[in-house]
């Protein structure tokens, strides 16, 4: 049973320039765990030092945002596709 993880263009340099990778996984968290174990340089761009997904990193299973499912415990089934999409944010000064 494997799921496909689409690697976004900015992060492909940390994944041997691959645009996707397949892993056996029962949940989104397992798939992302395999991904960041195989390509460890990816980890800090997806997760905080505390191991939480960064706030601007959005993960979808077959176009469904995992925030509205069971987050990283969202179950996956054979053939599912996981996409990682950033939201873009910034601003000019320190506050808020």
């Amino acid at each position: 049973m494997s799921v496909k993880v689409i690697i976004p263009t900015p992060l492909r340099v940390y994944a041997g320039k691959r645009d996707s990778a397949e892993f056996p996984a029962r949940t989104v968290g397992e798939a992302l765990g395999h991904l960041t174990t195989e390509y460890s340089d990816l980890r800090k761009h997806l997760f905080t030092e505390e191991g939480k997904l960064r706030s601007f990193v959005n993960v979808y299973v077959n176009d469904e945002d995992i925030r509205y499912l069971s987050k990283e415990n969202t179950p996956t089934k054979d053939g599912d596709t996981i996409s990682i999409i950033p939201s873009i944010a910034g601003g000019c000064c320190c506050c808020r």
Partner: protein
Amino acid sequence: MADETTLWISGHLAEKIRAHGAETYPHECCGALLGHDSEANGQDAVREVFGLLPLVNRRDDSPRNRFSVTAEDVLEADKSAQAQGLEVIGWYHSHPDHPARPSQYDRDHAWPWYSYVIVSVQNGAPQDMTSWRLNDDREEFSPEGIEIRHRAAV
């Protein structure tokens, strides 16, 4: 990132970014940079902007010092770029009444590889425009040169 990178852009498109910053002042503007990055060619890599996709700043709670582009907007930008045979190579935004330097908040919400163009808008008038790329270790941005491609505006 070992070597300083360069972002090529036409004078016409550079002016459009400045104009967007002036238009939304005192709020931040934002948009996508559509172009090509010939990274596969190694040291001869050239990154050039061929189009812009102005976007709506979704931070209506704090638009003077924050901007936000949702994941849905990012997907739309990707589709728009692909339809033109391009890719999203970065993002631009303005800093109203602040220098064109990335903030800590910018760094916390960035990925490497993308070019982040910032235009400073002082009292409604666009000033400096800079470009930055986040280092691999996420500790800081490196400045990226902006080169104006001189040719007839499209």
